[in-house]
């Protein structure tokens, strides 16, 4: 995998995480990895029609989400943010229900979880984060919105409009671009003019940070700093977490058509789980007993979630009609009667 020299924006250097935090985040990463592995298996078994794996992005997601204040902040995901959801305490059965195609946005409560519905439009949710953040400022509250999007999404007009709006309106928002090097079959070289998403920040007068997205401490630290800046009225930050999509785009994808298997093999050395475990060991923050216990407990959690989503009931057909509007709608009532008579 060709090394990229991120240009302009200051590469972020990590301070080591406090041991208890490091252990907690490692367990979240491990749980995410295990849920992900179960989810791929569920797709193979035909339980999920398809699945998008976050394998390789655990540090970028857990590290950034763990810096958020789950009481005050709000995350706006796209569709690959399983570990962000996990870190924020989202009901993971409800999260995965989206991949079982039970309900597009997921079956968790997005407002209570402070994690917006899963959104399949790349770039689309980015301005929502700015709007939500502006709402905090207008209300005199101190919450920060965190917007998650990919390297491919950065090409969308909405991302530009959102960043410019955030700058002009001084919205307390943190943009986290997980640059996993690929947007489906298209690598950074054919996606990002100039090669760096974070470098765009300067053009909006915004802080821009490039961070090793597989370095848990670095991601956490960069996000914490950005959240603080936003919270104290310093405006938006754009963080580009350089990571790697270790697997295919989705279970339906075939990477052999477009990327060198050597690149995937080389990735193994960067596996954020391996690296975080090594960091824990090097710091003397965790021993074999910890890792054994974590392995067992995270696996149990992943299996519970797997079983939960497999067994989740299908939504009733009345759900087709029940969430469209809050106010009465006679045309829908009539169509619901047709459905009852001719389909149910």
């Amino acid at each position, binding site marked *: 995998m060709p090394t990229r020299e991120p240009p302009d924006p200051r590469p972020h250097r990590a301070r080591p995480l406090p041991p208890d935090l490091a252990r907690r985040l490692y367990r979240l990463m491990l749980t995410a990895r295990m849920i992900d592995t179960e989810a791929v298996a569920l797709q193979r078994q035909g339980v999920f029609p398809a699945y998008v794996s976050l394998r390789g992005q655990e540090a970028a997601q857990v590290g950034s989400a763990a810096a958020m204040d789950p009481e005050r902040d709000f995350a706006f995901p796209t569709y690959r943010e399983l570990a962000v959801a996990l870190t924020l305490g989202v009901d993971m059965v409800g999260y995965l229900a989206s991949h079982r195609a039970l309900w597009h946005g997921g079956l968790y*409560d997005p407002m209570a979880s402070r994690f*917006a*519905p899963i959104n399949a439009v790349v770039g689309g949710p980015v301005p929502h984060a700015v*709007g939500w953040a502006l709402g905090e400022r*207008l209300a005199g509250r101190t919450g920060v919105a965190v917007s998650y999007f990919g390297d491919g999404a950065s090409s969308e007009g909405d991302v530009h409009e*959102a960043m410019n709006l955030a700058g002009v309106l001084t919205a307390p928002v943190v943009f986290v671009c997980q640059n996993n090097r690929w947007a489906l079959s298209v690598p950074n070289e054919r996606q990002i003019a100039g090669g760096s998403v974070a470098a765009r920040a300067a053009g909006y007068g915004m802080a821009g940070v490039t961070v090793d997205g597989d370095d848990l401490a670095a991601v956490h630290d960069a996000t914490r700093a950005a959240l603080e800046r936003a919270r104290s009225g310093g405006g938006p930050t754009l963080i580009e977490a350089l990571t790697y999509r270790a697997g295919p785009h989705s279970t339906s994808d075939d990477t052999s058509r477009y990327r060198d298997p050597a690149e995937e093999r080389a990735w193994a050395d960067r596996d954020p789980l391996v690296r975080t475990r090594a960091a824990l060991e090097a710091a003397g923050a965790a021993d074999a007993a910890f890792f054994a216990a974590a392995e067992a407990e995270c696996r149990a959690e992943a299996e519970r979630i797997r079983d939960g989503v497999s067994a989740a009931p299908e939504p009733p057909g009345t759900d087709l009609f*029940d969430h469209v509007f809050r106010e009465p709608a006679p045309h829908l009532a009539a169509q619901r009667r047709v459905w009852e008579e001719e389909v149910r």
Partner: protein
Amino acid sequence: MSPTATAGTAAAATAATAAERGRAAAPPAHLTMRDALNRALDTALAEDPATLVFGEDVGRLGGVFRVTDGLQRRHGADRVFDTPIAESGIVGLAVGLAMNGWRPVPEIQFDGFAYPAVDQIVNQMARMHYRSRGTAPMPITLRVPSFGGIQAPEHHGESLEALFAHVPGLRVAAPADPLDAYHLLLQSIRGDDPVVFLEPKSRYWDRAPLPEGGLAAAPELPVGASRVVRPGRHATLVAWGAMVRRCLAAADLAAEDGVELEVVDLRWLKPLDADAVAASAARTRRAVVVHEAPLTAGLGGEVAALVTERAFRDLAAPVQRVTGFDVPYPAGPLEPQYLPTVDRILFAVQRTLEY
């Protein structure tokens, strides 16, 4: 505005027929549709601190049509604010604000500049409540100065109702006169669903007498209801926005020949008041639907289908459609040749009477 159209141009009156102009010449103590909309916004801002008004040039300038005039001064630059020129971002901002408990009333400066926002309107604003299984509030009223008739530049004469009426999760409204505009806009803002609110810009300067007791005392219809603005018995004309006046002008002329046309102002375009419209058509046995938008896949087809489905046996003739042609909205001198004329409406009435 882009590049040249704006408030109060003399051109605004150009497209109006003599009959329409006649009506517009009213004595004082009257107010225009623009005033009525301005007061509705003012009321909404005053009654609910969650209400926000924003968009291009709506703040300091007061909007290119002055519909938001004075609102920033009265309610502050936090609640009435200018945005950069980014229609998709404006609607996206509204979605995020709504999720955070606000009641956004964004403006798209002109109809044709709603197109860049279609993704946020269709894929986000209209679906977020559904996607979140009813948990994410989405009480957005998207105001769009709409329709043609003021000799404006390109993209300033579009009719968007068919596009948005087709989108599940949206409500669509269009006022036809000042007093009704006030209630329609307030109902849209107070309601908890997203509404696309299409304001007939050629009618912004129409005046109506202010009722005793003020605007709030003007008659208020239930959400979703159409209204008969002129009763008649030989055929039903169905219209919305600026075409209501044109239909009234046609009805005046027809009356001179003893033909009594009923004119229905649809008001709500989605969901639309199908039963009431069909009942009128069933009674008169003939219907003509009139709109500015191009014919093909316009809302006229929907109205015709709804009426025909409900009143087939009572209809003496197929529902007639008098619409813009299937051509891009034209400039200046071609505009009155594109828009439905009183003559074309009367030809259609004749066709249905003689069917």
